[in-house]
């Protein structure tokens, strides 16, 4: 049997062919593994690819659509899988909290905001990840997914706490902030934040930087929430954030404000530092 001049033993090709055609027994599998170690240049999927290509050609004439009921079950299973994978991916990529970013007890930069809030819900650090919804623009979804899947060393992921001062939040409101000081990149995810009318009011993000005075949080820009339910918003701060300690979302006049009165605070997420 010719192997076209390549330095590949015929037996190795035979085993690859048999594997792709009907699988191998234990002894043959061990033999194949031994030969592959001796010939690492061999593309182990090459026979599978040849069979797959031929299979696609032979099946082309009588290809059938997938039954609708099966497609529906698969779609449901895909949603479950994506949700499970999102949680799994997030747990695998738990954020690394830099030890030098510890917040000392009395220096809670965002404390006045919390005190001012009618309903104080201390934001706790939770680790969860969800795949972006179809409602968000694909590019932002992809950026967010990549950011979470390949987190930077100083990645933090914090759940929004439902503050709801001056704005009613639904009971099932959830969301999170993911952020990196080093990259000055981050995303906010909201699920259930009420839709706003941009001609009347807009949401505005504030980032509390522990290296700056609490009275002057960094302006994170304004954004809108549509009716799609779950929204991903990239964070674009006006100036670099060196050590994010908390994120707060207020409701402001269209275009945002330079200094917030803090009368209407939708939600807040505090970065819990490792002790």
């Amino acid at each position, binding site marked *: *049997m010719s*192997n*076209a001049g390549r330095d590949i033993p015929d037996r190795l*090709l*035979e085993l690859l*062919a*048999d594997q*792709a*055609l*009907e*699988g191998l027994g234990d002894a043959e599998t061990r033999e194949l593994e031994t030969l592959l170690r001796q010939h690492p240049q061999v593309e182990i*999927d*090459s*026979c*599978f*690819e*040849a*069979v*797959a*290509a*031929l*299979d*696609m*050609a*032979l*099946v*082309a*004439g*009588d*290809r*059938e*659509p*997938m*039954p609708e009921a*099966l*497609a529906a*079950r*698969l*779609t449901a*299973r*895909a949603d479950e*899988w*994506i949700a499970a*994978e999102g949680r799994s991916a997030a747990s695998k990529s738990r954020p690394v909290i830099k030890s030098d970013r510890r917040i000392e007890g009395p220096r809670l930069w965002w404390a006045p905001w919390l005190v001012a809030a009618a309903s104080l819900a201390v934001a706790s650090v939770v680790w969860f990840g969800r795949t972006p919804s179809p409602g968000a623009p694909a590019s932002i979804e992809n950026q967010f997914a990549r950011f979470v899947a390949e987190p930077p060393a100083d990645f933090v992921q914090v759940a929004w706490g439902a503050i709801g001062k001056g704005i009613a939040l639904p009971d099932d409101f959830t969301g999170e902030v993911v952020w990196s000081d080093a990259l000055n990149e981050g995303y906010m995810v909201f699920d259930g934040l009420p839709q706003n009318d941009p001609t009347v009011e807009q949401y505005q993000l504030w980032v509390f930087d522990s290296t700056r005075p609490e009275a002057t949080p960094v302006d994170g820009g304004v954004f809108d929430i549509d009716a799609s339910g779950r929204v991903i918003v990239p964070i674009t701060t006006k100036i670099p954030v060196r050590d994010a300690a908390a994120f707060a979302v207020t409701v402001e006049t269209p275009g945002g404000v330079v200094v917030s009165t803090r009368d209407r605070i939708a939600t807040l997420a505090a970065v819990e530092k490792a002790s």
Partner: protein
Amino acid sequence: MSEYGGLVWSLAKRMCRTHADAEDAVQDIFVSIWRSADRFDPNVGSEATFVAVIARRKLIDRLRAQTRRSDTVTLTEAAPGAELTVDRSELGEEARIALEAFDELTDDQQRVLRLAVHHGCTHEQIAQTLEMPLGTVKTHSRRGLIKIRETLKQRKANGSGVGTEV
């Protein structure tokens, strides 16, 4: 899923004994595709081939884990040239090249490979169906497949576009 649902379903249906088994297989295959999606490299092969390779692996695993098909394959099904009413213009690049290479094989190699690939038959079943010695069946299937593999590799090396077309 919408793009490859028909392909995976068709592959599974041919290699599974029952409708229910084919449905289970399709679900296994898609879960495997989702899990492996980050391994897809468009420089290596097309998306369709990536999906079909995963499907093939899963279906073979299932076949080996189950009692083998015992259906008798008719000689009509195994005849060279049978079932090749394929509109080649609708095939992806890799499938088209594979089919061209398949056309160059001997009649016996085509019969054996069609039974092995298209019908999921074992070498032993093919030997019974075609009344050929088992060793001859293995030789035909291996040589035929290796020839197709080499053709695909050569075309890829020559930059035929393999790997860029779905």
